[in-house]
C-alpha cells in the first residue's frame, strides 16, 4: 500500500512539476521574451552581457529548445550574429542548472508561501493581461513546480526498498551503461535534461538510486537533450539547423569529457569528477546537481577551446540559406568608416548586391529573400550614416565625398523601395486570372525584367553609355500601360490588373530615378 501511495504521489508530483515548468516557461517567455531580445540585440557584442543574458534566460525560461527558437528568429532577422547566438545558447544551458540546484534544496516553506501569495493574488486580481498578473502567474507556476518536486520527494520516501520500482532503480543505479541509456531515453521523452535530473534527485537523495549510477543518468540525459534538439530541428535549414546541430555537438563534447573523467577515475583511482563533486557538495541530491552543472561547464569549455573549428564545421554541414546570406554585408565593414573614399566605394559595391537581386525577385518573389534585402539596405544605410557621423564630422568631409555620400544614400532608398515594388509586382502576377490578363502580365514581367537587368548592368559598370541606356528604356510608359488597362477592362479581378500595371509604372519610374542618381553620382567623381 505504501508503495502504491508512493508511486501515486511520485506520479502526481511529476504531473504538477511538468505543468509548473510548462506554465513557467510560457509565462516567462511572454514577460521576458521581448526585453531579452532587446537587450541581446543592443548589447550582444559584449561577452559579459551574453553570459549574463544567457544564464538568466536559461534560469527563467528553463527551456533551451524555446531559447534556441528565439535565437533562430533573431539570427534570421539579422538582429544577432551566429557567433553571438552560439555562446548565448550555452550560457542558457548553464542557467538551467539553477532549477536543478533548487530542486536539491528543501524549499517547503518557500513553496507554501509562494503558492499562498500567488494563488490568493490571482483570485483577487480580476484584470487580465497585466504585467503584474503575468508575474504572479509565473510565481504560481514556480510554486506548482516546487510542490511537484515535494510530492515526488515524499512519494519516493514511501517506496520501500523491496518494492518493484525500488528494485528497478537499484538495477539502473548499479549499471553505468543502463543508467546512461535510461537518462538518454527519459530525456528524449521529456525533452529536457534538467527535468530528467530533477526526477533523479529524489530517489538519489534517499539512496534508492545509487550516486555513481545517478551521475550517469544525468550525463545520459545531457546527451539526450542534444539528440532531442536535433530531432526537433530535423526539418530545419540554414541558421536554425546550425543552432540545433550546435546544441547536439556541444552536449556530445561535454558528455565525452565527463565520461572520460569518470572512466579514468574508475580505472586509475585518481580523484577526478566523482570525488571532486563529493568534496564540494553534501548529499547525493546536490552532488547530482553539480554533475548537471559540470555537463554545462564542460560544453562551455569545449566551445571556447574549439569555437572556430566548430563554427566552420557547422557552416559546412548547414550552410546559411540564401536569404540569410543576402542580409549579411559582403563588402562594408565598420572599420572602413574611417576612410570615407574607400567606405563609399564599398557601399557602392554592396548596393550592386541589391540591384543583382531585382530580376530574380521578379521571377520568384520570396518573402525571406525580400526581408534579407530589406535588412541589407538597412545595413548599408547604417554604414553610410556612420560615415556621415555627427554634424561636425560631416562638415569635415571633402565636398566631393559629401556629394557621393548624399547620392549613395538616395540610391539606397530608391533601391529599397524598388525592390519592394518588384516583390509586390511578382506577388500580384501570381494572382492574375488566366487568359488574356495572364498573357499581358507575362509581357509586363518580361519587359520589366529586361529593364531591371539593364539597371543592374549600369550599377556594376556605371559607364555613361550604360546609364544613358537605362534612362532611355525607363522613360514614361503611361501610354502603353493605359492601353493595356483599356484592353483588360472586362477581365476578371480588375483590382489585380490595376495593381499590377500600377506597380509596373512605379518600378519603371524608380529605375529612371535610379539612373538619374547614377548619372549624378558619376558627375560627382
Amino acid at each position, binding site marked *: 500500500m505504501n508503495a502504491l501511495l508512493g508511486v501515486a504521489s511520485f506520479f502526481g508530483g511529476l504531473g504538477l512539476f511538468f505543468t509548473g515548468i510548462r506554465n513557467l516557461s510560457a509565462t516567462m517567455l511572454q514577460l521576458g521574451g521581448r526585453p531579452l531580445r532587446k537587450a541581446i540585440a543592443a548589447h550582444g557584442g559584449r561577452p559579459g552581457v551574453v553570459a549574463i543574458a544567457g544564464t538568466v534566460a536559461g534560469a527563467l525560461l528553463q527551456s533551451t529548445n524555446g531559447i534556441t527558437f528565439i535565437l533562430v528568429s533573431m539570427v534570421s532577422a539579422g538582429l544577432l550574429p551566429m557567433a553571438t547566438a552560439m555562446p548565448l545558447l550555452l550560457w542558457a544551458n548553464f542557467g538551467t542548472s539553477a532549477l536543478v540546484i533548487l530542486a536539491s534544496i528543501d524549499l517547503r516553506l518557500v513553496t507554501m508561501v509562494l503558492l499562498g501569495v500567488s494563488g490568493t493574488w490571482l483570485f483577487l486580481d480580476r484584470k487580465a493581461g497585466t504585467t503584474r498578473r503575468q508575474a504572479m502567474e509565473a510565481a504560481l507556476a514556480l510554486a506548482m513546480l516546487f510542490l511537484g518536486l515535494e510530492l515526488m520527494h515524499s512519494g519516493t520516501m514511501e517506496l520501500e526498498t523491496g518494492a518493484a520500482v525500488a528494485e528497478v532503480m537499484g538495477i539502473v543505479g548499479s549499471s553505468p551503461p543502463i543508467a546512461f541509456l535510461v537518462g538518454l531515453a527519459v530525456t528524449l521523452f521529456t525533452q529536457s535534461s534538467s527535468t530528467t535530473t530533477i526526477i533523479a534527485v529524489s530517489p538519489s537523495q534517499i539512496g534508492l538510486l545509487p550516486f555513481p549510477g545517478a551521475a550517469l543518468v544525468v550525463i545520459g540525459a545531457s546527451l539526450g537533450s542534444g539528440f532531442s534538439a536535433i530531432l526537433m530541428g530535423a526539418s530545419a535549414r540554414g541558421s536554425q539547423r546550425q543552432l540545433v546541430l550546435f546544441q547536439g555537438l556541444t552536449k556530445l563534447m561535454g558528455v565525452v569529457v565527463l565520461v572520460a573523467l569518470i572512466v579514468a577515475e574508475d580505472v586509475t583511482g585518481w580523484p577526478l569528477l566523482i570525488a571532486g563533486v563529493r568534496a564540494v557538495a553534501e548529499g547525493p541530491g546536490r552532488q547530482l546537481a553539480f554533475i548537471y552543472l559540470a555537463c554545462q561547464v564542460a560544453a562551455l569549455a569545449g566551445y571556447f577551446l574549439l569555437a572556430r573549428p566548430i563554427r566552420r564545421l557547422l557552416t559546412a554541414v548547414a550552410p546559411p540559406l540564401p536569404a540569410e546570406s543576402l542580409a549579411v554585408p559582403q563588402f562594408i565593414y565598420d572599420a572602413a568608416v574611417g576612410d570615407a573614399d574607400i567606405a563609399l566605394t564599398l557601399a557602392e559595391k554592396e548596393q550592386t548586391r541589391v540591384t543583382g537581386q531585382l*530580376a530574380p525577385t521578379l521571377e520568384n518573389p520570396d518573402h525571406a529573400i525580400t526581408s534579407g534585402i530589406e535588412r541589407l539596405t538597412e545595413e548599408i544605410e547604417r554604414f553610410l550614416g556612420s560615415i556621415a557621423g555627427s554634424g561636425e564630422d560631416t562638415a569635415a568631409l571633402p565636398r566631393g565625398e559629401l556629394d557621393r555620400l548624399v547620392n549613395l544614400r538616395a540610391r539606397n532608398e530608391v533601391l529599397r523601395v524598388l525592390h519592394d515594388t518588384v516583390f509586390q509586382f511578382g506577388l500580384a502576377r501570381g494572382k492574375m486570372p488566366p487568359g488574356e490578363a495572364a*498573357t499581358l502580365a507575362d*509581357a*509586363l*514581367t*518580361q*519587359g*520589366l*525584367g*529586361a*529593364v*531591371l*537587368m*539593364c539597371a543592374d548592368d549600369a550599377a556594376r559598370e556605371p559607364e555613361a553609355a550604360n546609364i544613358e*541606356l537605362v534612362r*532611355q*528604356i*525607363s*522613360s514614361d*510608359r503611361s501610354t*502603353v500601360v493605359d492601353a493595356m488597362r483599356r484592353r483588360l477592362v472586362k477581365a476578371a479581378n480588375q483590382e489585380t490588373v490595376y495593381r499590377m500595371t500600377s506597380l*509596373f509604372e512605379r518600378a*519603371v519610374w524608380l529605375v529612371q530615378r535610379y539612373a538619374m542618381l547614377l548619372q549624378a553620382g558619376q558627375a560627382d567623381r
Partner: protein
Amino acid sequence: MTETILMPAGRLDTAAAPGFERELIAATASGCDRLLIDLANLVYVSSAGLRIFLVAAKRLRAGGGRIALCGLQPQVAEVFDISGFAAILPVYADRETALAALR
C-alpha cells in the same frame, strides 16, 4: 561589308537563350558588321532574349557595325514596347526595309 541574317524560331526564353546567344556570338566574331535578326517566326521573347539582342547590338556598335530587327509578331512587339527596347534597338516592319536601312 559583311551581312548576316539570323532567323530564330519558336520561343526565345531562358532555356533557348544560350543557344541563340552562341549563334549571335559566332556571327559577330566572324567579321560580320551588318546583322539582321528576322523575328517573323518568333512567337515569344523573354527578358533573357531581349538581353541577348542588346548584347549583340553593343558588340556590333563597339566594332563599328550595325544591327536591325524586323518582322516582329504582335506579342513580341508588345514586349519590345513595354520594355522600352523599341526605343533603343532599330525595329522594322519587314526584311526588305530592314536590309535597306542596314545598307
